[in-house]
């Protein structure tokens, strides 16, 4: 159940974000459920889903509209989103990165209205550290905040900055 303003913003933004992914349609938004125990036949099509014994904030379940078997396209994809009501620190990055390294989602987002904490500023600007912390399987965790009073992404909050284009509304 969506229980605060940030979560409402995330759901609104997620729907807009998926619409921009022309090749995919949104099947379901799963909120705060242990994925290994969630009864979804689609989720169970992912190999090793039964090891996904964790509960995070949002899982977006997507279906590819057209499958090219030659390219070994995956029919279903996941997007993981965690939110923080405080500023983002190493622990929250480590937590969602563990999920990413197990689930290999298409995208992974960590969202906070307060941005990232001072403690991790250094790592976010130091590319070597940043890559170690937020890269998984040639993809990257994306950290961002919303603008006050709206579900528009704050442009200068996006980490890593080279993925700003992906989040442009």
């Amino acid at each position, binding site marked *: 159940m969506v229980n605060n303003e940030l979560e409402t913003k995330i759901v609104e933004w997620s729907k807009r974000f998926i619409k921009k992914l022309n090749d995919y349609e949104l099947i379901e938004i799963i909120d705060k459920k242990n994925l290994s125990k969630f009864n979804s036949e689609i989720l169970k099509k992912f190999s*090793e*889903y039964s*090891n996904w014994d964790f509960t995070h904030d949002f899982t977006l379940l997507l279906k590819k509209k057209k499958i090219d078997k030659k390219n070994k396209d995956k029919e279903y994809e996941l997007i993981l989103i965690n939110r923080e009501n405080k500023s983002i*620190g*190493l*622990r929250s990055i*480590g937590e969602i990165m*563990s999920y990413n390294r197990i689930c290999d989602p298409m995208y992974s987002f960590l969202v906070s209205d307060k941005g990232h904490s001072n403690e991790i500023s*250094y*790592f976010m600007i130091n590319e070597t550290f940043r890559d170690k912390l937020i890269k998984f399987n040639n993809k990257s965790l994306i950290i961002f905040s919303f603008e006050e009073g709206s579900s528009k992404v704050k442009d200068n909050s996006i980490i890593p900055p080279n993925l700003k284009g992906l989040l442009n509304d």
Partner: protein
Amino acid sequence: MKKTTSLFYLLGLICGKGYILEKSISINFPHHKKIVEGIAHCPKCGFLATKTINSTETTLKCKNSSCDNSRGGIDPNIKKKYYQRELFSKSINENVIPFLKSNLEFDYSLLASNAVTILTLKNLNIDTLRFIKEFFDNKTSFDRFEINQNLNSEVNELKIEFVNGLLDSCSYPSAGGWLNRDGQNGHARMRSYFQIVRNWKLPIQIDNFLRDNFNIPTAKFDWGHPNIRDSNLQDYLNQNKTSFAREHQVGFFPEYFKQFKYRVSPKIELFKELLDHNLKVNFLNDDDWLKTKKKITTGKIKPNHPMEFDYRIPKEVRGHFDAEWQINLALGCKYLKEIQRKSKNPEVFRISGELDEEDLSKVKSYYKEISENKFTNINLDKKKKKKSIKSLEKKISEQQTYKPLCDWLKNYIEENLGEDSQVFDTSAQTLNNYLRTNLDNFSIIEEKIKNLEDFEIRPDVVGISSTTNKIFFIESKIVSLGIKEVGQLWAYSVVANPETSFLISTKEISSSLLNIISNNKSFLNFAEDKKIQIGMLKKNGNVDIYNGE
């Protein structure tokens, strides 16, 4: 592809508790209790001897009312004790692996905790792996596997080995699960159980497979459904709302399973104890659940339960049920469907178990009304169960673990590096501040940790070896270690790059984490050739490392 007994035994193991990965197969053998006990028989008359549940009595009572021991006095130590972790590992190595190897080629590894032993098979023949994947319709986990219909047409010895695999992976002979029955020479009919986790199709398929192929009845179903597991809402009222969502159970009597064989201890020994007891007592009825009366009388109608539509329950059985057999029917039991076909109104039968009644709306409204009334009569504001003071006293706080962990880490560094060390409980402040204040030779290691100056890295315990200045982290927990806990320490370790990073709990590692680390060797890596070490703090201050090299 040669179909061998080893292959079908492996299929049974996988079906019960296996994972099929791209190139490997893992089978979990859970054993949550450290010790399990066998049956106690009265030394005087040979009847079953038991202890009254929740009583403070220290001796056992004989179930024979005419025996002198019927009021107690039997020493509980007459029960055999089985140490599960050791026995599981030993028997998997000595019985399971050799039998599998007799017809299959593979490499394997065993990983064990106090709660589970995980067998991982790698480098299986490509055709074998393909056959296994196709047998399970390319599903990957035991909570989705079904019994392939083609198995019914295989020769008997292959079917038997499939059941043997199921018995070893997901059945649990237990001295406590007896049925209250008198036999010709005693009392209590022992039952063993298939315990099936999250898979709602397999229980009925096991039952129907045994009936179809071996003409064997099962004794009892117990579903992880709120109406069955928490029918009076006691757990719900005690704020344990999801307690219903445990494994499903299919009970069976050992005497019908004599043609099958366990290879895993202590299941072998316990099954024999149960079988010997039942054969000696000698029961004349088969006590088949299918043959019991299905009519649900008013007294058996269950109150509505607020969790009946919970997401953990599959759609077919989301809703209200008054009896286990109704769930069996909803999930496709063909023998029940035959009975249903003979009823005057199948829908009336589904709701009430009545074979001769036809008026559906009358039955529907009656059962609905009773369920609603019973629910209304339950006081949902009933006071929450008081937490036992004793249990709170027993709980160890995280803070209390720091001192023993400091001592342990100091020893660890000495044993592994041959160096003295300085070990600190740094939970109260940042590593950097702590070291600057407490370390005499801070300047020596300043270079090493200069990048951590403002990063507020807070593992609970930090050790620094005195000669080579290597850094060690411990993150302490008092919960079962899972993926989340690893993640939290992982980020600290990536940044600080300690020599070794330990994640240690007073509780057992979760089986899901154990599965992940046995199948994904890099999951715990935080730097090249460095991985988080997962451990358990024992009461004597020692730490057992699960993934030590």
